[in-house]
């Protein structure tokens, strides 16, 4: 017996089951040949029962207990209905621990009615330690949110160090010891591994081992939608859900694999008939599978192929026919709507057409001599699903034609009438323009037509027309296909009104906005023309009769340039001037040194600064007046005028200093056009001479008056001033002439004495003595001094005024101060 037992032990295999029976005499339905195995990480238990058990009438219950490392971890009852009691049974269970990591034992006993049989035990042993660290499970895919247990089997003689799951260090986890060489790590896998797997690493001293874990989701694809393109296949699209790293989801449409097809799209060959049906897609990965269903009639979901073999035919100047074919025959039976996209080089034009099996369109209203490209897309008109892709583009060029009629206007320049027209743009010329023919006819001599040819690109001609006559001028453009319709304009003197008052207009936004009163005679609208005052180029705009306003923009507009804008009434005959305006698109500051020939003129203490008239060309803003500054070392004098036509300004009462005179123009941009001139003021020589002469004449006149007065009143004056001195009555010795010496002072200044009635006698002493009055040698200060004083006073007064010395006129006894 002992030997038998020994042999049995020796021949036991690693994965052999060990079956032990606890009690002899068990019922016939107790498990037999119990076998435990590891199938896809599940613990599979299979056993057999005696054939007699098949006759049992009631259900047979098996009680199972699972032990891991001899510790019960799970208990379960497994019922088998009487009609299912067979010769063998199986039961599987997913262990929380990889089966390699520990020994898993299963105890089973049967129970029928109330009778229980003996326990039968089977064991699946775990792996034994090897020379290298072993980690399990290897390369397993887990679902996000699940709890995973990994185990590490450490080689004998090595000490376990650590175990972790990379990328999940922050997740809740738990370490435990399974047995003395096996350790388990339990981790809650809260997030997926998206771009790489997670490594389970186990370290034992210097050794390291590991396995890879992948965490993902079961398929969660959505929004399945199917259609057909050719009624012979179905094409389905869906929204792809998150994929498991390194384990992509597989798809099956109508139970056929979609392997090799792009993500989110699958096509299968199947005939599409009328009527709704289910279109089923299965998405499957290692964690599970889902089924998406689209219920639809795909004959109402036709996604057409693009029109093929595009052709162009019947090309004329303004029409063309575009045609195509269908690669799917069934399209010819469908009611189709097609969009034709026509591109003319700058814009896209969309045209829609409908018809059953539509395969061609005629395009009208094209521009002659023009390049186009066209493409087409179509869809079903009834049960519209979606537009097909665009066809390939096809290009074509329309044939040429005569040019469009010209836009003609006129402009008066230097007594000539300038006929001008706008150059035709490419879409108007319809071919290369060769020349223009201008004809003009005096309406009074209608039979006499004048003609001239103007070579392109010249687009104007000056005509010498009489201002008293009326003319009709016609202009046609000619290209290789012929001449355009003539454009005509009437010319007459009423087109101009020299008396028309020009009002002011301000520019806005780089142009001019103007409006005018409607006029009932404007049968063909209005014409607004404009030109710069500094040039001859004229532009115009024709406005329909219903409009009485216009906003003028021109690429030729320049800031600081004055423009004349005129509004004409367009009539059956000559245009009539309605109003005239002038203004600037935008005023600019007038540059310095605007004033030409700035000069100054002094009149006494006044200075007049003058300049030449400023031409309109030089005015880059409206001038409202002028200001003059007179600046010397300490003061500034300002003189202004608000006359824009002024050409001078005068500063008065200036001192004889050096001044700097600056002149500015007054504009809305402020004072500008600064021009400077310097001047040194001085007393004028002519004035000085005049003043002297006037003074002398005045003095002379005054003296003359005085002299006359004195002469007339000499006696009185003499009496008053120089009354006669009574002669003393002398007796005795006082009568001797020798004892009397007349007093006549020698050094007396010549004095002005009235003219004597008799000549004085010259005495031997040289004294002048009057016969009537004896002037004695005795000094009579009372008489002389006052006289002299008077004279001196007179003289001094004179000299004070005139600063002129007294001059003897003669020696006849008549002495006149001069």
């Amino acid at each position: 017996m002992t030997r038998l037992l020994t042999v049995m032990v020796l021949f036991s295999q690693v994965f052999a089951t060990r079956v032990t029976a606890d009690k002899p005499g068990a019922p016939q339905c107790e498990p037999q040949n119990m076998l435990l195995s590891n199938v896809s990480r599940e613990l599979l238990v299979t056993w057999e029962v005696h054939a007699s058990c098949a006759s049992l009438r009631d259900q047979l219950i098996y009680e199972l207990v699972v032990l891991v490392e001899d510790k019960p971890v799970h208990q379960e009852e497994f019922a088998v209905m009487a009609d299912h009691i067979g010769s063998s049974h199986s039961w599987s269970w997913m262990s929380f621990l990889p089966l390699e990591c520990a020994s898993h034992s299963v105890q089973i006993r049967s129970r029928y009615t109330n009778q229980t049989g003996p326990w039968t035990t089977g064991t699946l042993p775990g792996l034994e330690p090897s020379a290298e660290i072993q980690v399990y499970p290897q390369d397993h895919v887990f679902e996000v949110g699940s709890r995973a247990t990994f185990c590490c089997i450490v080689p004998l003689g090595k000490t376990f160090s650590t175990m972790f799951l990379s990328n999940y260090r922050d997740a809740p986890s738990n370490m435990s010891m399974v047995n003395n060489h096996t350790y388990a790590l339990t981790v809650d896998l809260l997030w997926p591994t998206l771009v790489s797997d997670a490594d389970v690493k186990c370290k034992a001293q210097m050794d390291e081992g590991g396995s890879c874990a992948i965490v993902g989701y079961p398929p969660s694809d959505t929004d399945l939608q199917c259609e057909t393109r050719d009624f012979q296949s179905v094409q389905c699209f869906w929204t792809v859900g998150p994929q498991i790293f390194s384990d992509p989801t597989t798809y099956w449409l109508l139970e056929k694999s979609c392997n090799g097809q792009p993500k989110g799209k699958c096509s299968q060959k199947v005939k599409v008939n009328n009527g709704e049906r289910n279109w089923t897609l299965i998405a499957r990965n290692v964690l599970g599978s889902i089924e998406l269903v689209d219920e639809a009639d795909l004959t109402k979901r036709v996604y057409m192929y693009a029109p093929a073999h595009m052709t162009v035919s019947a090309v004329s100047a303004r029409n063309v026919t575009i045609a195509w074919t269908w690669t799917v025959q069934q399209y010819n039976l469908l009611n189709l709507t097609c969009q034709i996209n026509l591109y003319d080089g700058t814009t896209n034009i969309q045209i829609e057409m409908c018809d059953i099996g539509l395969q061609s369109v005629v395009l009208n209203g094209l521009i002659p001599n023009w390049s186009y490209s066209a493409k087409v897309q179509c869809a079903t008109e009834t049960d519209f699903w979606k537009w097909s892709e665009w066809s390939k583009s096809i290009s074509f060029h329309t044939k040429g034609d005569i040019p469009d009629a010209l836009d003609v206007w006129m402009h008066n320049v230097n007594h000539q009438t300038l006929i001008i027209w706008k150059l035709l743009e490419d879409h108007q010329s319809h071919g290369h323009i060769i020349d223009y023919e201008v004809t003009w006819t005096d309406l009074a001599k209608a039979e006499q037509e004048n003609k001239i040819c103007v070579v392109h690109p010249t687009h104007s001609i000056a005509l010498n027309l009489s201002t008293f006559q009326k003319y009709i001028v016609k202009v046609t453009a000619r290209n290789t296909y012929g001449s355009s319709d003539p454009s005509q304009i009437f010319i007459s003197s009423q087109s101009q009104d020299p008396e028309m008052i020009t009002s002011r207009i301000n520019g806005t936004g780089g142009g001019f906005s103007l409006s005018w009163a409607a006029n009932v005679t404007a049968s063909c609208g209005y014409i607004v023309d404009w030109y710069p005052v500094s040039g001859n180029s004229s532009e115009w705009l024709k406005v329909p009769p219903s409009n009485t306003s216009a906003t003028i923009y021109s690429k030729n507009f320049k800031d600081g340039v004055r423009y004349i804008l005129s509004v004409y009434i367009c009539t059956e005959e000559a245009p009539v001037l309605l109003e005239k305006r002038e203004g600037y698109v935008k005023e600019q500051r007038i540059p310095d040194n605007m004033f030409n020939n700035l000069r100054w003129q002094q009149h006494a203490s006044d200075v007049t600064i003058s300049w030449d008239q400023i031409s309109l060309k030089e005015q880059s803003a409206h001038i409202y007046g002028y200001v003059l500054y007179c600046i010397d070392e300490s003061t500034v004098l300002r003189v202004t005028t608000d006359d824009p036509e002024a050409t001078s300004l005068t500063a008065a009462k200036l001192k004889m200093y050096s001044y700097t005179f600056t002149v500015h123009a007054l504009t809305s941009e402020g004072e500008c056009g600064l021009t400077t001139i310097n001047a040194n003021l001085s007393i004028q020589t002519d004035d000085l001479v005049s003043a002297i002469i006037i003074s002398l004449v005045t003095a002379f006149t005054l003296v003359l008056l005085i002299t006359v007065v004195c002469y007339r009143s000499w006696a009185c004056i003499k009496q008053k001033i120089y009354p006669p001195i009574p002669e003393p009555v002398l007796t005795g010795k006082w009568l001797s002439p020798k004892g009397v010496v007349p007093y006549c002072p020698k050094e007396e200044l010549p004095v002005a004495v009235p003219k004597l009635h008799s000549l004085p006698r010259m005495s031997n002493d040289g004294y002048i003595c009057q016969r009537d009055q004896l002037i004695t040698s005795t000094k009579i200060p009372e008489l002389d001094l006052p006289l002299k004083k008077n004279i001196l006073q007179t003289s001094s007064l004179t000299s004070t005024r005139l600063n002129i010395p007294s001059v003897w006129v003669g020696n006849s006894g008549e002495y006149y101060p001069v």
Partner: protein
Amino acid sequence: MALRRSRGMTIVSSAVSVAEQLQHDCSILLELFRKKESFSSDVTVADSRLVSVQLSSSRLDCQDKLWCLYSALVQCRALMDKAISREEEELSSGQTGEYEKQRKVVKDRVSFLIAKTGEMIKSQDSSALITSSVGSEVVCPTALFELKLWVYRVYKEVDYWAKMAISTFQALRGNLSVPTRRSRRSNMSSRGELRR
């Protein structure tokens, strides 16, 4: 002779330069791999070599050493090809990042170094017949973690042989001689043993 010697020196210098560049690129690749897999710098891998060529034997002359080196590099390239292929199948996210680009650089550099080594062999023996195929298919682990460790070993192997190439070429610089006529040699076996 002087011209040949000069030309030989140029080839050696060029080969040294390529080998140095390969060694540099390899160290970058190893770092990127460690970072990608969160391996520590002292991650333990098997000590045994993947390429079984013995270069250190003193019985080998210059030409033999070149042949051995050539054989080893050819095996390195085969290992790189396999490693890249398996990584792409099992461990790829579909993105091409810095690691994937560096991996390609190293693989191309190995090819270039193989060509340079072949030039050197030719410069010594113009009749040498050089092929670059490996006899047997490379075997690698199936389990993902083991595969990662194996890929790491491959990169370490390439790094090792880049260093061996540098030292071999530098030693050759002093030993350049007039090339002698030798009998034709076929390509080395995958085990790297010399056939005489």
